[in-house]
């Protein structure tokens, strides 16, 4: 049987126009349009591009839900077996449209989908876990490389064939871990890698570390004797009984607690709820993690102006970066509003 594929492109690739026509509403055309020709060639005999969906980037961005509903309505009459969207390269709105549409079609029509983008397209971060997104260059110059990979991925899915690893198939890593057998043990492979590294040779890590963003250092405190300092911890120190029920791992919240008038943390008043280290020492004396006792002494001695009367705590144990970022943003806002000048953040 020949599979029926529908292809989604924006107003630009459909030859309708540039930004001035970006408000073009969704439209379905019979057969191939623009890059669809190359897609049809790559699909060969196994599948036919029965129709092309065209929508302006602004239209989609401004009426996302409506556009998806409309497009799904248009699609249904064509009974497609699969949807191919893009490639969107590094075009942000186009990428978001391809991602949103593929996501909706895969969920509502339950058919295979594939799209393609440059890794830094903002839609990649949002959709890469849910979709197969072929990695492309940042501009349409990469069309010739991208189309055959998209065709192969969609055909494999249609035929129910297992897909290979991201680098084999050319899609952006989805964060899925698969168990595989290797003929040499990890220690041997690690030593090989180390030797290559020492020799300055190329080597491929088996576990790439996530990349993190950087923030330039905040300006230094000029007058420490007048500065208000706050304590924050990821070590899970909370008032005894854990009133906010902060989780021992993968925390979804943080707590704000008063230390007004408090000179010292004791096993009677505070405890740790962190599930990622031995809590014995912190529970015996919580000042070992949140150093209130000495902070109070230094405050009295005038080593700094004053101690903020609230502290913030969460559990940094497998906490998703997105949560940690959100906690940080909220805490930062509160500390700014309280005219805090500097923060001592302790971690276990």
């Amino acid at each position, binding site marked *: 049987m020949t599979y029926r594929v529908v292809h989604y492109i924006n107003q630009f690739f459909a030859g309708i126009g540039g930004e001035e026509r970006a408000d073009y509403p969704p439209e379905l055309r019979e057969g191939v349009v623009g890059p669809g020709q190359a897609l049809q060639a790559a699909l060969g005999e196994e599948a036919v591009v029965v129709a092309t969906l065209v929508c302006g980037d602004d239209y989609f961005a401004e009426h996302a839900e409506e556009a998806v509903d409309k497009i799904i309505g248009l699609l249904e009459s064509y009974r497609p077996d699969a949807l191919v969207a893009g490639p969107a390269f590094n075009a942000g709105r186009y990428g978001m449209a391809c991602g949103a549409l593929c996501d909706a079609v895969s969920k509502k029509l339950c058919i295979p989908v594939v799209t393609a983008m440059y890794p830094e397209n903002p839609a990649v971060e949002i959709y890469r876990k849910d979709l197969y997104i072929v990695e492309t260059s940042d501009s349409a110059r990469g069309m010739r490389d991208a189309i055959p990979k998209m065709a192969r991925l969609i055909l494999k899915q249609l035929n129910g064939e297992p897909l290979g690893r991201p680098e084999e198939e050319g899609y952006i890593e989805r964060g899925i871990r698969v168990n595989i057998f290797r003929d040499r043990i990890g220690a041997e492979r690690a030593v090989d890698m180390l030797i290559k590294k020492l020799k300055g040779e190329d080597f491929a890590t088996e576990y790439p570390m996530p990349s993190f963003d950087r923030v330039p250092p905040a300006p230094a405190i000029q007058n420490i004797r007048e500065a208000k300092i706050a304590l924050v911890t990821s070590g899970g120190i909370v008032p005894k009984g854990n009133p906010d029920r902060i989780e021992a791992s993968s925390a979804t919240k943080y707590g704000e607690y008063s230390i007004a008038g408090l000179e010292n943390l004791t096993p009677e008043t505070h405890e740790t709820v962190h599930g990622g280290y031995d809590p014995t020492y912190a529970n015996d004396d919580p000042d*070992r993690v949140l150093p209130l006792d000495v902070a109070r002494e230094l405050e009295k001695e005038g080593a700094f102006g004053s101690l903020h009367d609230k502290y913030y705590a969460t559990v940094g144990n497998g906490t998703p970066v997105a949560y940690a970022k959100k906690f940080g943003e909220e805490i930062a806002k509160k500390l700014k509003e309280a005219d805090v000048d500097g923060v001592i953040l302790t971690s*276990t």
Partner: protein
Amino acid sequence: MKELERVGLPTVHVCTIVPISQTVGANRIVPSVAIPHPLGDPTKPLEEEKAIRRRLLLKALEALQADIEEQTIFGN
């Protein structure tokens, strides 16, 4: 940590696993005693422990007053 620095609040990270702090992008880092008791040492008498805690906090205050351009470790 980064969100605090992002809004202009100088923030010092007192922690034991310095490489993690560096990887996640802390700008001011003070290495501490041990993972389960970063600002204390249960093998020492209380007075000595508090002296360690005081030394680390003074170091942290020093870090907050330092004009830095890049990630800096404030060690001993």
